[in-house]
């Protein structure tokens, strides 16, 4: 198992999942794959965190799910963004930008001092 796995803040996973679903509906495997793609391989989401997160977002009403047929002709559970979910992306992104900016400031302050 690769050791340099970046661990993420909890809210960040939500953001990544919502981002991964902006274009198409997708199933769990697809979402994990897509997150790996859009983060250029930095984040490999484990099922132990992926599925609870998907169900949590569904509970919150940001995702909706439906059963469909996958590319390899199996029954798969597809998730898609709801209207509330699309709105949530904006909120999550604004939040993330604030956090990352703050962290950046903190790092720079340390290196200067």
């Amino acid at each position, binding site marked *: 198992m690769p050791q340099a796995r970046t661990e993420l803040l909890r809210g960040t996973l939500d953001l990544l999942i919502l981002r991964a679903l902006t274009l198409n509906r997708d*199933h769990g495997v697809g979402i994990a794959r897509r997150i790996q793609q859009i983060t250029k391989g930095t984040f490999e989401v484990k099922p*132990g*965190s992926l*599925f*609870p997160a998907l169900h949590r977002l569904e*509970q919150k009403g940001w995702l909706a799910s439906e059963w469909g047929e996958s590319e390899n002709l199996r029954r798969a559970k597809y998730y898609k963004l709801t209207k509330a979910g699309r709105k949530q992306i904006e909120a999550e992104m604004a939040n993330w930008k604030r956090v990352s900016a703050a962290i950046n400031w903190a790092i720079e302050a340390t290196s200067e001092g």
Partner: protein
Amino acid sequence: MPNLKLLLRSLFRKSRVEQDLDAELHFYLETQIQQKMDAGIDEPEARRAARIELGSLESVKDAVRDVRMGAGMERIWQDIRYAVRGLLNKPGYTVVAVLVLALGIGANSAVFSLVNAFLLKPLEVANSSQVVGLYSRDTKHPGRYRAFSYPNYVEIRDHNPVFSSLMAQQLSLVGVQKGNRTRRIFADIVSSNYFSTLGVPLLEGRSFRAEEEKPGAELTVIESYPFWKRTGGDPRILGRKLRINGHLFTVIGIAPKGFTGTTALMSPETFLPLGAFNLVTNDFESKPLSARDNNALILIGRLKPGITQEEANASLSVVASRMAKEFPAANKDQQLFVHSLSRFNISTDPTNNSGMYMPAILLMSLAGVVLLIACLNLANMMMASGAARRKEIAIRLAIGGSRRRIAQQLVTEGFVLAMVGGAAGLFAASWSAKLLMAAMARVLPFGFVYSSTPDVRVLAGTLAFCVASTVVFALFPAWKLSKPNTWLDLKATPGRDVNGCNRRVFLARQCAGNRTTLAIAHDAGRSRSIRPQRLARRQYPAWVFDAKRSARRSGCKSG
């Protein structure tokens, strides 16, 4: 709310939800295997690798279950089931604890049900907030109150703007003869509109007629429900005779069950019409009731809808000055006013219930001390039994159970005990209160109307006692026993249950249904009845959770 559907689904269509989850995860697994096979790995190896990457299927499922709505409810339910199982496993401890609690909570419930009957339970009177006492105060001597004469009563009843109905009554001790025996009882001598003013329909028969307020009319009597029951409960009682103070009275009605007149708990045994006043009151002055200076009646009226007591008092001062002008000898310097009725007496001066609060508080605190002592004893018992469970708790802590979770489980166990004890206590309380009341009713000259079936207030009160006693006897032991350093106990007493070969059996017994944390993913994965991963996951909140690694961390070999 879109989530309501999901909540209901997860609570009531659980098997379907579980199937879906299973299908979802299997799809994930199969896709991963396929992916690996596409990359050129042969099937068994691909399957193995994918399984290892996924970790325990059960632990993933458990993590999903945890975010589901209703997970909290489910956890409480699990705790309760575990507590019940645990208590059934130690019947001696359980029986003693329940008995102690039944005694403590029962004593409180009994006292509280009396306090409830006395102070809280609404009277069996329609819209009782409209019913007020009418009082007459001497304006020259403000502390002096007097009752009303019959002519004054009639005057006010017929000419006032505030009451929709005004009735008169006086309590009197009378002797009821049956064979050679005479029993002294309280009779309420009332005006003919007594029951209609209070808005109470009779159980049987008719109310008094206006002419029965005059002396010389036929002597009639209405029996209270407890009196009727005690004297045989004859279903054809109407028309029978009752000998009171040597005179024969015809029974014309029975008051409804639960009716206690205008006071709480204690009820007059019979109701007589005003016409019988001079026959049954032992008044040596022997002034007729019709005399304007015979102030013998206590008045209670029902205010017209929408009229406040202040407005009534303003209008009554006009009535008082008119009466003073018409009959100056009897009515000068009198102020009329209304006041809410006391639950305890029928009196010429306005009183409130505050006199009863002190005894009630005293009684309640006495019973409270009993419960407190019971709880302290139980807390000791819990600590002692907890010492025996130290190892169980230590294991749970060592493999990552949160202290809060363990304490919560211990408190749940206490609460289950308290509820069982409370139920037993309630039963004992209603039974003993009934016995007490029956014993007192035999010697006291008034009927007790006391229902031993607990009403909503008594049930709520008992529940409150259960919660309070749980807090007292379970919270502290739970907190103390779940203290994290108890893991030292594990080291101090190495036993076969920690590293012996039958570890799994032991753990299954200790943890099943309890979802204690076991990071031993393999063990847990084999048995669906153990779902320990939840807490393990909480212990390692990072969302990249590797079951194998944490298993290693907790010092157990997996596999």
